[in-house]
Structure formats: structure tokens, C-alpha cells
């Protein structure tokens, strides 16, 4: 095969792959937006679900989803950043660094349902917490931990090595180097990692299905130990009633809302990265 033909083949194959991926995504989004838009209204977004979701809206599901992921973010942020700082600044042995990386990649690869089963056994069965949105947040935080840690660490690793060395040469302690140099300069990576992990977590059903959510009869939780309704489990419940056209319509509406939240977190991640990177290089 001539070089020109090989190039053309390579170009054709890669573009076909790109078009295929973009096409699938476009079809999926088009279907969700087209079907979901018919269900969306202000009332649908703020009112509570009735008749197992076949009527009413998804107000409590939106609230529950946000509550559970924002709490997970609050829990995971210090853990992930602390782990990344420890990996970057305090572990000297390459072997220990590799071991930590392997653990993080392994945690990232664990299927989400396994986290849910662990939460069910450990929190619900052994500790007897019952269904609780806080436990759901803890499990989601565990699931988000590797993503946020790896993103934070990647941002720290991308800093010029001279920063830490120059700061240390000025007599700054390791803690001061972390606080004054490493954290401000890697803030963009930490925030981006967190928002990407949030975008993933808000769509998760399996980890919280058994431990944090109720399919009906929930409102605004009055304590950490009460369950909440969430969008993914609501969609699951509605999908199981798909023979009912109203339930199906509401499922599309809830799906569109969920996709909008994922898109919002992803867009925020994009803008946070651009804005914070620019700020750190000012």
C-alpha cells in the first residue's frame, strides 16, 4: 500500500470513528431533549411527585440529588486533596507512590453497584443506620475519591518543579509550600476534578439505591439519617411503569433534567479550568 493510500485509510477510519461517536451522542441527546421537553414545565420542576411519579413533578428528586452530591463533595474534597498533597509532597519512595496510584486506579475501576452493596452491608446492616441520605453521600464520596484525587494530583504534578524548590530555598516549611504555592497553583485541577466527579455522581443509581433513597413518600429530610428521593432512582421507578404513557413522559422529563445537571457540572468544570488557570498564571 502506498503512503498516500495508507494516510487516506487512516484518515477515513479515524473520521468514521469520530462521526460514529458523535452521531450516537447526538441521537441520544436529541431523543432526550425532544421527548423530555414535552414534559418539562416550571410546575414539573418544582412540584412533588404523586401516584408513584405518574403525575406531579420532580421537585423533591432535584432537591435530594443536589443534597446528596453536594454533601458528597464536601466530604470528598479534603480527603482527596489531602491524599494528593501527601502523594506529591510527602511520599519520597517511588514504590509507595506506585502502590498508592494502583489503589486509586483500582478504586476507580470498582463497579458502582459494589459501592452500593458495601454501603448496604456496612452501614445499613452492620451499623444499623437505615436508609439515610448522609450514608448515600459517604458512599458517593468514596466513589468520587479516586477521580478527584487523581485530577488534583495531576494538577500538582504539572506545576513547574522549581516552584516548590524555590519556595523551600526561601525557608518555607513543607506546610507553607503546600499552602502558598501548591494549592493555589493547582486549584484549577482540583475544582475541575471535583466537578467532573459530581457530574458522574449525580447520575449514579446503583450506589445509593439500597442505602439512601426511597422511591416514594419522601420530602425534605429533617435529619442526616432520613432518606431522600433522587432523580436517577425516580427515573428507574418510572421506567418500570413504562406501559403507562404519563409515567414514560415524566421519565423523559426527569432524564432531561438529569442530563441538564450533568451538562451544567461539565460546563462549570470547563469554565473553572479556564478561569482558575488564567488566575493562577496572572
Amino acid at each position, binding site marked *: 500500500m502506498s503512503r498516500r493510500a495508507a494516510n487516506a485509510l487512516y484518515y477515513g477510519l479515524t473520521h468514521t470513528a469520530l462521526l460514529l461517536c458523535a452521531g450516537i451522542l447526538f441521537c441520544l441527546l436529541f431523543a432526550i431533549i425532544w421527548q423530555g421537553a414535552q414534559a418539562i414545565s416550571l410546575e414539573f420542576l418544582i412540584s412533588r411527585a404523586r401516584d408513584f411519579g405518574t403525575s406531579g413533578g420532580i421537585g423533591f428528586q432535584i432537591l435530594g440529588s443536589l443534597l446528596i452530591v453536594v454533601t458528597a463533595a464536601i466530604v470528598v474534597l479534603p480527603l482527596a486533596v489531602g491524599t494528593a498533597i501527601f502523594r506529591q509532597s510527602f511520599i*519520597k*519512595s517511588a514504590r509507595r507512590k506506585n502502590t498508592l496510584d494502583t489503589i486509586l486506579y483500582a478504586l476507580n475501576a470498582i463497579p458502582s453497584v459494589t459501592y452500593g452493596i458495601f454501603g448496604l452491608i456496612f452501614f445499613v446492616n452492620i451499623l444499623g443506620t437505615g436508609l439515610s441520605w448522609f450514608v448515600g453521600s459517604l458512599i458517593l464520596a468514596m466513589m468520587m475519591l479516586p477521580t478527584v484525587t487523581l485530577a488534583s494530583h495531576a494538577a500538582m504534578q504539572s506545576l*513547574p518543579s*522549581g*516552584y*516548590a*524548590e*524555590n*519556595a*523551600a*530555598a*526561601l*525557608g*518555607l*516549611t513543607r506546610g*507553607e509550600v503546600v499552602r*502558598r*504555592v501548591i494549592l493555589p*497553583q493547582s486549584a484549577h485541577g482540583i475544582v475541575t476534578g471535583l466537578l467532573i466527579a459530581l457530574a458522574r455522581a449525580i447520575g449514579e443509581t446503583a450506589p445509593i439505591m439500597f442505602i439512601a433513597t426511597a422511591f416514594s413518600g419522601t420530602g425534605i429530610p429533617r435529619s442526616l439519617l432520613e432518606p431522600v428521593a433522587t432523580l436517577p432512582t425516580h427515573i428507574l421507578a418510572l421506567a418500570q411503569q413504562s406501559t403507562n404513557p404519563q409515567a414514560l413522559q415524566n421519565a423523559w422529563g426527569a432524564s432531561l433534567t438529569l442530563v441538564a445537571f450533568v451538562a451544567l457540572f461539565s460546563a462549570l468544570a470547563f469554565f473553572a479550568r479556564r478561569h482558575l488557570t488564567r488566575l*493562577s*498564571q*496572572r
Partner: protein
Amino acid sequence: MSHAPHLKIISDNDAPLAAMPAISLKGFSAYYGENCIISDITLDIPRRGVTCLIGPSGAGKSTLLRSLNRINEHNAQASVSGKADVLGRDLASGYPDVTDLRRKVGMVFQTPCVFPRSISENVLFGLRGQKRPKSEKREIVERCLKAAALWDEVSRRLSDSALSLSLGQQQRLCIARALAMSPEILLLDEPTASIDPVSARAIENLVMDLSPQMTIIMVTHNIAQTKRISDHVVFLCDGKIVEAGAKTDIFSRRSLDKTRTYLTEEFCDC
């Protein structure tokens, strides 16, 4: 392990202080893992003046410099042995808090590395956390930038990003930042290697201006520069001191053949 001769640099202009060297090394060695980079050297560096460390690449000049404020400890594989006194205190046991050592022994690296902050914030970077009145901070910024021969160029844009400066200006800002800590010893690791000749000359003038007030130890590959700015010269090769002494002796016909060959042909066969 071979033993280097005990070499003592005697300052020409400050005989009493020469008895109390700024840095005193006895049987000092430095390693990276199993590799011995500096082998059993003995050397006294007097207070005040410029001491240039010269020698071919891999001679151990930068390793020696990095050992003197223990910045080499950032590398997990780095270790040292032997006796080293800095400002009259043992390098290890005399400075249980390494930050105390680094405030006394400032360092500027080969590649200028300013923090992505304003020019004045860069100067004050090492002092952050210490509560001082604004007027005192302004005074420190002005004094250090003047000492680093940068004040005239940046006095009207102190709040501009330090990244907007040229490389030569950034390197002088790094020196100003180190001076803000009021170090007694200043270590310069090839500070003119990555900048243009005009900026390099500005830094040379700056080093000569600072030399009456502090001990400056500078690694350089530039023989002409060594001749221009040094008071004392240490010629290192393959981790050992070949010769050390006052510049006038090193650059005279009295120096060893090896030294003369290196100084004239920039070649070393050790």
C-alpha cells in the same frame, strides 16, 4: 576512598574573619543513591566575597552547592557524610529546623523561577506570614530591588505580574527575593546560564556589589566570568577538589597544570 588534600582558602582582605570560615567542610561526601558525587572533600570558605565553584559538567559543583542549604534533601536518594559547618554550626545537628538554615543560606537557581504573582509579592514571598507594617514592606521591596539592580526598571509597575519580566529581570527578581530574607550566605547555581549577555553582566555587577556584605558562592562554567567577579576559586573535577585558593593564585602561573589546562582550554582529563 581517596583523601583530598586539606585546602584552605585565605581571604586576601579579611584575615581575622578567615579564621572563622562561613563554611567549613572536612571529609565531606555527597551521594545520590549508591553514586558518590562528591568524594571526601575538605575546604574552608571565608566569610564575605565571591567564591566561584568551577569545573566540568558532572564535577559535583551543583551537588556541593545544594548540600550547603540541604535543598538536596528534596531528592529521596540524596545523602551526605563527613563534617560540614555552616556559620559555625553543624549542617545537620546545628540546624534541627532546616528552614532556619535556609533563611541564613539563600539560594538562586539556574533557571529563573518567579511565582505567578506581582513583582512586590515575589520579593516579599519568603516573608509572608510575618506581620509587618505596609510601610516596612514597601521599604523591603525597594531596598531589595535596588540591591538587585532592578528598581529603576520596575519601580512604576510593582503590582504587575512577575511573569511579564524578561528572563534576566526574573533572575534578578529571584536574587531580590533571596535578599529579602537577609541571608548571610547566598548560593548561586549558574545564575547567568539561561539569560542573555547584557542581563548576565547586570547580574555579575550585582554579585560584585553584594560581595562586601555577604558570602556568595557561585557555580559557573564561564571562566571569563570567574576571572571578573571571584575573590576565591574552587576547581572541582570528578567529585574532588583539584585546587582551591585566591583568584590571583588560581589564575597565575603558580596553579597546577590541570587547573591551567582547564582555565585556558576548558578541558579536564581527570
